[in-house]
């Protein structure tokens, strides 16, 4: 097991495209770190640089005490699980798992015993003589995991290993991978664009955008204290509601409502800010003195234990690029911006299943002001 350190790591391709910019990241020994972000954010490039599959243009990567910039992949003592499994199709499961041991000239008896042990961990003891084409998608994914486990490497690297599985199997394998990682305590870097995976699996999550690290924190901190507009929009499903507001003496004006602000924000007086409201910070107002947003229900999504009400309120939506990119791919962001009415914002409220709301109802949404987030619209950074 070993820590991984990125020191000002940069990757620029031959055509001048900078995939990763000055990345600084410390992954602790035995930690499970998730790199998350939209397509093209540089997360996979960063992972491949650890593996040695991409050359590093600038900076330094260390695994343990060793600088690995110029070490070939086979000498880095890392194991990688690929998105598409990347199994050897002409070899049996046992041969696939044992290939790395063969390359390292591990004695046959020991290799056999390690393959058996690995097969037990991944639950494929009865399938060792089968070829990959005779296995289901989930089983192939386990073989890919087994190939990594058997090596007993210092680091596991996983590149969207679950993205080819169906939803049910993905949930199952998510727990499985987390269990195996805890059992083996191997430092793990896991790449995904699925923020649910990121939030549920990682000890810490690194959010990336356009090659730049946005925030590196524990999942709950990312959710509750996002560092900027992009992280706030990207983390959380449904996404955080973003409304434009102005800091005034008595609070933050959003449309016709005035929301109280923490005292620290009085320093931003007169400034336009983005007000972030998580869907669970909105509830149907039933008396009380909480500040409210009023609007018309557009749609209601019943999810079983809860329902999501999409309510159009009188407020300006935040159309900053960071927000739109957190919601959709960068290419679609401008298109989306053109479709949005600048004076009407749709917010999503997470309501109890028993709440009675129907489309076209006029509702009053009470805002839990303790959970509001404010972002400077000029810099995109959280106002704290």
């Amino acid at each position: 097991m070993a820590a991984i350190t990125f020191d000002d790591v940069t990757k620029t391709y031959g055509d001048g495209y900078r995939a990763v910019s000055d990345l600084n990241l410390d992954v602790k020994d035995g930690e499970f770190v998730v790199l998350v972000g939209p397509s093209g954010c540089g997360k996979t490039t960063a992972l491949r640089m650890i593996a040695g599959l991409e050359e590093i243009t600038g900076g330094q990567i260390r695994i343990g005490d060793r600088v690995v910039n110029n070490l070939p992949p086979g000498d880095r003592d890392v194991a990688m699980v690929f998105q598409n499994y990347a199994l050897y199709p002409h070899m049996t499961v046992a041969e696939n798992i044992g290939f790395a041991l063969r390359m390292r000239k591990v004695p046959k008896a020991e290799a056999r015993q390690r393959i058996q042990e690995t097969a037990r961990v991944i639950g494929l003891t009865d399938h060792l003589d089968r070829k990959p084409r005779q296995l289901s998608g989930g089983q192939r994914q386990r073989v890919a995991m087994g190939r990594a486990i058997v090596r007993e490497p210092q680091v596991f690297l996983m590149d969207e290993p679950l993205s080819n599985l169906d939803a049910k199997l993905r949930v199952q394998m998510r727990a499985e991978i987390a269990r195996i990682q805890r059992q083996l305590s191997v430092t793990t870097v896991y790449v995904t664009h699925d923020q649910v995976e990121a939030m549920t699996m990682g000890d810490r999550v690194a959010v990336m955008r356009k090659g730049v690290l946005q925030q590196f924190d524990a999942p709950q901190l990312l959710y509750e204290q996002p560092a900027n507009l992009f992280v706030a929009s990207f983390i959380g499903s449904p996404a955080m509601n973003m409304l434009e507001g102005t800091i005034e003496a008595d609070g933050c004006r959003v449309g016709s409502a005035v929301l109280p602000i923490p005292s620290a924000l009085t320093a931003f007086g007169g400034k336009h800010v983005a007000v972030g409201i998580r869907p669970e910070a909105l509830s149907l107002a039933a008396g009380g003195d909480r500040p409210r947003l009023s609007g018309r229900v557009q749609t209601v999504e019943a999810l079983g234990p809860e329902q999501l009400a999409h309510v159009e309120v009188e407020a300006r939506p935040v159309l900053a690029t960071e927000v739109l990119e957190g919601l959709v791919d960068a290419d679609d962001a401008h298109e989306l911006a053109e479709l949005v009415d600048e004076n009407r914002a749709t917010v999503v409220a997470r309501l109890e299943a028993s709440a009675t709301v129907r489309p076209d109802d006029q509702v009053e949404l009470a805002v839990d002001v303790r959970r509001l987030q404010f972002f400077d619209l000029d810099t995109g950074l959280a106002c704290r």
Partner: protein
Amino acid sequence: MSAQVHTMRSDASATRRRLFGSAMTYSFLVAVAVVYIFPFVISIITSFKTEPDATANPLSVTPHPVTTTAFHQLSADNDFFTWVKNSIIVTLSVTFLRVFLDSLAGYALARLRFRGRGAAFATIVAVMAVPGVVLLIPKFLIIRQFGMYDTYYGMIVPLLVDAAGVFIMKNFFESIPVSVEESARIDGASLFRIYWSIVLPMARPALVTLFILSFQGSWNELAHFIISAQSTSLNTLTKGVAQLASGQLGSGNRYPLKLAASMLMTIPVAVLFFIFQRRIMNASEGAVKE
């Protein structure tokens, strides 16, 4: 009711038109097939004819009488076995080495990054466009210059790599998922180990294709053997049969003998093709999620 009858009539008429169209298409295809196969059939039948019968009725499909004299004559002829031996030596050497070298070159062009890679591939493609006959005299001069004239080396070495084979292998290697090779690199495999243990087994369909083409090409090669050797002891089947056909080894037309030799010459290629065609299958199945 009348609408129903009308519909049934137009259905029947459409069916008749379809059947007529199919009959015409199949008749045309059968005619083309007969024209294509007929020379081969005549070749087989003539090899079982007597010489007078073959001369009198060259296109008859029923030998009178049926005889294997031509085959007995061939089996009694020592030269024929020398030709067979030479053909086997040259063909097997060329086939195995060509498959190996073409695949190595194809892999390098597909996966390795080196200066001049594009130019090298463009040259290979350009060579494919040059008719083989144009290169005969330069080949002859080079073989002479290297002192390989009239030796097995001269017959084998110039055939060891061919542009088409490199082209086929390069294109196939490019279709193999890079992640499989990357996985092997991380597992600690060297470049040659990746090529040998991972990529080659996955390239089986292309290898089989190349094996058949190489075997067929070198077994049936004639022009190169004419310019690379002159001793009768180095005659291959093609050269020997060609000499038979041009009447150098006997008098008369000797159709049964010539066609018996030709027929025997085609057997290995046909057998090889029937054995290997079943092995051309997808060897990458299960490697990656598609």
